[in-house]
């Protein structure tokens, strides 16, 4: 693709590795944290969310094995759908925050929800949707023998 520079394909592996590390940190935080009312902001959880944000940022901007116009088309469609979903979530998010802040400490929840809401969530939606659409498209192709 001449007009859209992406990271080499190898960065996808790095992204998944970092995502695995992030998932591990979140699980560790979940099981080890003793302050159950604020488990969302224990150190391991925050590190896990940051690692996931970095991981999905890398994966969002890394090439597929073979980048051509069909992949570019799927990528652009996915971006459009992600924008619509994220816009809907922005509208619904304050309601969720109000509800969840009654369960967790409001200030503590505000910190972690900012990282998740602004950075991680759109990246997560985009990468997962893109992978799903790519898999669905490739699965529907019938190859000649």
């Amino acid at each position, binding site marked *: 693709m001449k007009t859209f520079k992406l990271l080499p394909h190898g960065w996808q592996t790095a992204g998944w590795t970092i995502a695995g590390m992030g998932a591990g940190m979140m699980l560790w935080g979940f099981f080890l944290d003793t302050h159950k009312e604020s488990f969302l902001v224990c150190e391991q959880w925050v590190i896990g969310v940051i690692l996931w944000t970095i991981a999905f940022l890398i994966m969002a901007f890394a090439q597929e094995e*073979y980048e051509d*116009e*069909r992949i570019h*088309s799927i990528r652009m469609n996915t971006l459009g759908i992600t924008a619509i979903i994220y816009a809907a979530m922005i509208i619904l998010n304050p309601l969720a925050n109000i509800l969840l802040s009654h369960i967790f400490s409001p200030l503590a929840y505000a910190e972690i929800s900012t990282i998740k809401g602004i950075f991680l969530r759109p990246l997560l939606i985009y990468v997962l949707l893109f992978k799903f659409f790519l898999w669905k498209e490739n699965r529907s192709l*019938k190859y000649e023998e």
Partner: protein
Amino acid sequence: MKNNIRVERAKLRMTQQDLADRVHVSRQTIVAIEQGKFNPSTVLALRMSAIFNTPVNDIFELEEGDWKE
């Protein structure tokens, strides 16, 4: 959009991978185009036309549904 890429390939005894390599796309893209699941760009269509030595209009054909948006 209908196409007869498969027929044109057969005339030249070309596999999907051969054609993909020559027009610089993946084999999945060629398969998707042949099955009507993806419409090629103008540049890609013209590349195929050059390789098959056949006018673009003879390779690709609009269907009735293509006139509606």
